[in-house]
């Protein structure tokens, strides 16, 4: 990042502002150093504990050696290739699961966001609370609850079996036999559930900003409700759709909790590999390389996606 900011930020503090004189103009010109002083503590924190670790990780990924003898930077880029060729199934699965969960979140979340924004009336705040409140309960406890909900022979699995849904999903490879737990379906269900609020809230924010008179205008021009939605509401909610999909897809693609708690060894995602390489196998170069590949892939996809969707002023 800009070194200019840092050196300026570390400069000695300016003299305190002169007290406002009893007569004359109030001080219009504020200290030139003030913004840098305000920024300095937080930015230094981010540079040291966010940017610098990325550099360390980059250097770790090109090291060779062993845990006992220590690691040296040998510019061994082959680690990237080896890691990719060994773990591409998990990488592909991450994109697939996270993508499916994002689409499901959009399909499930849009009606609820729409309901809160336009139809909820005096229930609006209550529903918003019910969407946000689960944030404060540990997400691990809630994810574990899905084990109960999807348990073998439980009511949900029973109902899906009776409706022959599981036959279809088994044929698609989403489930195995008459089980849901430890299958891709369970993992995608958990991912969808966990990141749904991250889709609903931005959608709600952008829907709420829409002027209700636009709907009336569309109706006056003989647009049917669905046409109004397609031509007016949905395009105007695009900023919410874009930030919602990003806020869902990015964390979902790196998540390893759902795949671990609800899945099996056949549903491992890239996050699971990074976690076990780092914390169990202690193969730091491979873990760092995988983590870097994930980061690069995400940044690339996000950039392309934001360009395509045409809303660059998201932040």
């Amino acid at each position, binding site marked *: 990042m800009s070194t200019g900011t840092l050196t300026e930020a570390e400069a000695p503090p300016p003299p305190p502002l002169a007290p406002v004189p009893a007569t004359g103009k109030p001080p219009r010109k504020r200290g030139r150093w003030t913004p840098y002083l305000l920024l300095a503590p*937080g930015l230094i924190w981010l540079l040291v504990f966010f940017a610098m670790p990325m550099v360390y990780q980059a250097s770790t990924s090109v090291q060779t050696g062993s845990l006992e003898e220590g690691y040296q930077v040998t510019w061994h880029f082959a680690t990237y290739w080896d890691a990719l060729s060994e773990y591409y199934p998990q990488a592909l699965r991450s994109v697939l699961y996270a993508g499916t969960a994002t689409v499901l979140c959009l399909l499930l979340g849009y*009606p609820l966001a729409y309901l809160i924004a336009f139809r909820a009336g005096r229930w609006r705040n209550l529903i918003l609370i019910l969407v946000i*409140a689960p*944030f404060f309960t540990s997400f691990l406890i809630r994810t574990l609850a899905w084990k109960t*909900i999807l348990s073998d022979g439980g009511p949900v699995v029973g109902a899906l079996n009776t409706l022959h849904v599981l036959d279809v999903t088994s044929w698609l490879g989403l489930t195995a036999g008459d089980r849901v737990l430890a299958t891709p379906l369970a993992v995608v269900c958990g991912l969808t559930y966990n990141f749904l609020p991250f889709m609903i809230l931005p959608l709600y924010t952008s829907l709420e900003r829409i002027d209700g008179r636009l709907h009336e205008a569309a109706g006056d021009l003989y647009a049917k409700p669905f046409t109004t939605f397609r031509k007016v509401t949905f395009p105007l909610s695009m900023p919410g759709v874009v930030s919602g999909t990003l806020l869902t897809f990015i964390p979902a693609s790196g*998540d390893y909790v759902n795949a671990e708690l609800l899945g099996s060894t056949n549903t491992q995602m890239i996050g699971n590999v990074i976690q076990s390489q780092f914390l169990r196998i202690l193969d730091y170069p491979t873990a760092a390389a995988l983590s870097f590949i994930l980061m690069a892939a995400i940044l690339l996809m996000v950039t392309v996606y934001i360009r395509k969707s045409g809303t660059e002023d998201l932040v």
Partner: protein
Amino acid sequence: MAFVNWLKHRLVVIAGLLTLGYLLLPNIVVTVFSFNQPKGRFNYEWQEFSTAAWTDPCGVADLCGSLSLSLQLAAWATLGATVLGTLIAFALVRYRFRARGAVNSLIFLPMAMPEVVMAASLLTLFLNLGAQLGFWTILIAHIMFCLSFVVVAVKARVMSMDPRLEEAARDLYAGPVQTFVRVTLPIAAPGIVAGALLAFALSFDDFIITNFNAGSTVTFPMFVWGSAQRGTPVQINVIGTAMFLVAVLFVVAGMAVTHRRKRQKA
């Protein structure tokens, strides 16, 4: 036909409520199973009604210890991230300076990064520096990833502030400190509180980053994670239910206060 029309009219409402049900189903299950008397180590199947876990929430070894550790961590992380984040937010909204774009992207990046990437890279830093993993490394990590969320929350509020209010205060001979404490801070307060609440929730609930940087320290989410392998005590459901209730109570109380203030003004 009447039914079909009714259904067509209510489609959005029905779909939305179904999603709400999907969102709340685990919370309902957690609540119900906090009254279970499980057989064996795992609490995944309903056996019989019991209030034993509610009367003895700390009855499991290490559970309340990890809970209090998580609360302490969240409190310090909230304090740190809120102070640092509020300063940054004011600088970004109120001042024009060089490298503003670079600063903005540095704030945005931690939110656009999968947690596992941040967790892993921070661990490589700590390993390279030979830092002792534990309370302090967790705290450093939590302040780091909560910071951006505080900046965004405070920025939104400060941006919608009318700068003329501060000019008016200065015209009335308020000094810079007085203006800040009596005018700026009270108006920015809702944004700062929102940012702080968000930071608290994020820090308290964080698992992925903590898992990488905790060493052998066990926070509450890590206790839950471990218990998923060893056997989940009912007390975990009790704590989960209690947290949900406390959150709802907090929000309802907050809304009641703003509602009353609005009525008093009117």
